[in-house]
């Protein structure tokens, strides 16, 4: 690590090996990779099922989802994401990083940051459904099993982000 930085974070290579071991154990135990966006989809489907059962029966997506899944909330990813919340909280507690704040570049306002986070989230949410998985579900887990789709998605995510980075530099630097 650089001398200028006094990092409290793990060395990225150590973190990477640890993350790799987590992913490996997911594959070894459950035969599948990690994920995140799928859990949100489960929440959405089960909300629609409860709030608007008529709609869930008629709209193509929910109808199919319910036909192929018994209980949307009883899914592997939902449990895993709960774990992520707990795990992140534990790590934040040990490292004394628990704090409510909006993180943003000093050049922009909190409001601007929040608006961009919302828009970015909407893009990411939509893209993750279309691309059948997000950075963790498709790109990382896919790469670990050498899935062609995983590599394509990974290249597209990082390629696009690099390509657009210039236009959004004010938000970050």
């Amino acid at each position, binding site marked *: 690590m650089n001398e200028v930085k006094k990092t409290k974070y793990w060395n990225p290579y150590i973190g*990477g090996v640890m993350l790799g071991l987590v992913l490996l154990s997911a594959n070894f135990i459950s035969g599948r990779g990690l994920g995140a966006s799928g859990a*949100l989809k489960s929440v959405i489907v089960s909300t629609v099922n409860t709030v608007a059962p008529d709609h869930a029966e008629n709209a193509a997506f929910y109808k199919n989802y319910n036909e192929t899944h018994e209980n949307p909330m009883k899914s592997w990813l939902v449990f895993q994401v709960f774990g992520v919340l707990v795990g992140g909280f534990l790590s934040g507690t040990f490292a004394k990083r628990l704090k409510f704040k909006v993180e943003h570049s000093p050049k922009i306002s909190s409001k601007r940051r929040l608006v961009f986070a919302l828009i970015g989230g909407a*893009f990411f949410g*939509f893209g993750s459904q279309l691309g*059948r998985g997000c950075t963790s579900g498709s790109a990382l887990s896919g790469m670990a099993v050498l899935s062609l789709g995983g590599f394509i998605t990974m290249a597209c995510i990082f390629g696009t982000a690099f390509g657009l980075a210039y236009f959004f530099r004010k938000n970050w630097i």
Partner: protein
Amino acid sequence: MGPLVVNEIISPDTNLFLAFLIGIGFGFVLESSGFSSSRKLAGMFYGYDTTVLKVFFTAAITALLGMLFFSLFGWVDLSLIYINPTFLHSAIVGGVIMGAGFIMGGFCPGTAFCAISIGKLDALAFIGGLFLGIVAFTEGYPLFEELYKAEFMGTPTINEFLGLSRGLFSFGLIAAAFGMFWVGDWAEKKFPREEY
């Protein structure tokens, strides 16, 4: 032997419980590596912080090597592991949209959950956005169905696609990853930023 749940060494309910434990590990590692900070994540695209690149690729090659060695020792049957199916068009379009979301929002779904757990409010907004995006997809599904299902290629692996052996491709990937890490360290020195 593995995967345990498929070979019925553990029950589906135990599997869900283990999913929770795996999630804890996932969240803990992400947070400890600094993935709860959107500026750190976005830093990769400006060269001032390549943590994401290093963690991401180190994780991928660690898991990959682990899987291949497990398979070599007969501990895990690779043909029972889920391989993400490849739908060429939706993978590309979805990836491009996600890339745009990444640079605007500064998170991906997994890291957003991790960030919200330590109180980052921008992650909350991002998750709100995720909901909107997913609902837009599920509600408008008939519009995107054709794109979503186009160019189904089965579940090919990249080494099959390139006509290489699994091991050879993996070795190439590992070598490429270390090449990228070297570039990353160089970029961090060139565009130094203070820690936040």
